[in-house]
Every structure is written in C-alpha cells, then in structure tokens.
C-alpha cells in the first residue's frame, strides 16, 4: 500500500511539472507512412508541407507543418500514420471570452506575472471530423478542443517559459517548463 502511494505521488508530480525536452528533425515525404500522406493530401490544397520526426519522453511521432490562410497547421501522427491531433495557431483573443477569463484566472493563480507568447488550438477527434474542421465545415461527430498556451511566467522570483494545456472548460491538463537550449554561442 505504501509503495503504491509513493508511485502515485511521484506519477502525479511528474504529470504536473515536467520539463519539456523534445528533439525534432526534418524528414522526407518518402519516410512518411502512406496513411499520413493521404490525410494531408485530402485535407489541404497547399503544396508546401514540411515533415518532421519528433522524439520526446512519450515516444516518437510524425508532424506535418503547413501554412494555410496565414495560420500554421501542425498535424501530428503516430509512426503508423494515424492522426493524433491537429494544432492551429490562434490569437489569445480568439479564445471565447468566458473561457479566456477562466484560463487567465488559472494562470494568474500560479504565476505572479505572465505574458502569453503563443496559442495553439488543438483538435482531437476522428480523421474525417478533423478534415471537416480544417476545411471549415461542421464535423459530424463530437471532437475535443484544447488550447496549448506558451507563456513567460514569473514564479518563485524566476521568469521561465511554460507550455500549458487547457481543455475547453478551462481546466489545466498539462504543464511543462520549456528548457531553452543554450544561447552561449549567440551572445558571446
């Protein structure tokens, strides 16, 4: 029982306050599963697609980045080519007002000061519904909308960058401190 408590305690700490360490590198379309290529071809008319392999603590994934209507779309697939989620850059003010206030209050409870750097709307659902959302159509089935927000926040007298994931009710799902790579070669 005591062992179970210790495991649960450390698991919860890990979920809430992880550091974001990610490695990504460009890959060729020939290295991408056909299923992912087909999804992008059917969803976007844009020809310029950048493909990346991402490696993080949770494993490997494939990401397609496309610029469409002045917004950046990131489509994440597993290594078999199954769509996991779609992220699209939005302005913080584009989040519905009531939800935005809840998110601001949640962030304000943790950080004495903060500045929003980047917001991505995240859609999770079936492939056909995600395709409808990309095209601006109404999806047939239910889907989830989350908001991934990057902030510079002041906490315990330190200013750092954090990536926060909120659900559509404004509840914090995940929080990661962004570990910035060394700037030594840029400033000296």
């Amino acid at each position, binding site marked *: 029982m005591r062992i179970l408590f210790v495991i649960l305690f450390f698991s919860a700490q890990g979920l809430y306050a992880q550091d974001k360490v990610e490695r990504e*590198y460009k890959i060729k379309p020939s290295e991408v599963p056909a299923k992912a290529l087909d999804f992008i071809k059917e969803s976007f008319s844009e020809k310029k697609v950048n493909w990346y392999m991402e490696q993080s603590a949770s494993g490997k994934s494939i990401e397609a980045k496309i610029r469409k209507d002045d917004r950046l779309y990131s489509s994440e697939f597993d290594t078999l080519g199954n769509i996991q989620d779609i992220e699209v850059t939005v302005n913080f003010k584009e989040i519905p007002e009531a939800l935005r206030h809840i998110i601001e209050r949640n962030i304000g409870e943790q950080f004495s000061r903060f500045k929003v750097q980047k917001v991505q709307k995240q859609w999770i659902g079936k492939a056909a519904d995600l395709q409808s959302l990309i095209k601006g159509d109404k999806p047939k089935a239910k889907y989830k909308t989350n908001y991934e927000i990057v902030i510079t926040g002041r906490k315990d007298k330190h200013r750092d960058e954090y990536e926060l994931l909120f659900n559509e009710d404004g509840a914090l799902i995940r929080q990661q401190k962004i570990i910035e790579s060394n700037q030594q070669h840029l400033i000296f």
Partner: protein
Amino acid sequence: MKRYILFAFLSCVSSCLYAQNQVGLLPQINTDVRLGNDWKINAKLEGRQLFFQNPFPAGKSETKFERADLELVANKTLSPSTTVGGGYMLRRSDGKFIHRIIQQFTITQKLYSSRLSHRIRTDQTLEKDEAIQLRLRYRLSWEKPLSGLKVDPKEFYLKLNNEYLGMLQDGKGDLEIRGLANLGYSISDSNKIESGVDYRIERLIQKSPVHKVFLNIAFYHSF
C-alpha cells in the same frame, strides 16, 4: 550583365588587395559555468594568428601570433530571452598588456525556425601610454538550424553575425563593421563547434580602411 558582375567583383578584389589588409586565423575556446540565482560566468580564450599582412610591417614577420585574449563575463539571466552582464578582458599583444572593462545586455528572440540575438555592449579599453578608448557595439546574430526547427544535438546549423562598433579615443571617433558566417555542429547539449569566415573593416572614418579576413574556429562548452 555577366561582364558587369565580373568587373565589379574584380574591382572589389583589387581594391582590397591594394588597401591595407590582414588575413589570419581566429581560434576561440568559450566556456560557460552555471552559478546559482540565474548567474553564469563565461570565459573566453581567443588568439589571433596572422598569415598575411599588407603593407608588410618593417622588421616584423609577415606571419605572427598577434594577440591572446582572456575574457571573463558574469552574466545574469533576467528572463528566458534577456541577460545582462559585466566583465573584464586581458589582452597580451606586442609584449604589452591591455585591459578592457565590459558591460552588455542581450535579447534573444525565438522565430518560427530560427533564433535572433541582439547584443548591446559598451567597453572601456585601457593601455599604457594611450588614451582610454570607449566603444559602443551592437551585434545581431542569427542561428538557423539546417535540420528541423531548432538546433538539437548531432545537428548542423548556420550562424550569421553582423556587428557595428563605434569608438571614441582622444576626442576622435571611428567605426568598425564586422560580419561572420559560421557553420556550426551541435555535438551535445553542452558542446558546439563552429567554423567560418570572419570579415572586419576597421578605421572607416579616420584613415584609410583596413580589411581583415580570418578563418574563425570556435569551440563552446557549457559546464
């Protein structure tokens, strides 16, 4: 059109050859030591080896080890994108010691697939039998990963620098412009190696300009 380009290129080459110039090597070892409370100490050891000089200085070898610099800067991280620091540099050149006091402020911006760093630096150089030299410097550095959106270990990157140095000594002002293009390789999170061309044009206002071209080789280590 090709003739004009060729003519312009040859004119530039010939004007550089007739102008005062130096060609050499600029090796550098740069280390960072992390202290508590967002402070870091940066130590840089840099040398300058000349292989060619025009005009050839009388009584001096054309190839010579011109200088060795040891620079120490204490830098405080104010936020993920800004730092402020101060330090000291000791230079050994022509048998003399030169002392420099340094103050700097940096801002690093993350762009979609690159990073841009602005550095504003002031320094005061003290040398025996010379008036104090005051400089105000601005440097723009751009880092572009050659694979992916950010530089990860075992990946190459491109680094471009452009720096403007205004100086004042004995009531006379002058200007120097520097440009650097380096190809870098990130060995690990804490080790990087870079090499490329460092071009400098000095004495732009006071006298005839001096052109300097160096092969830059730099190694960065973070403890």
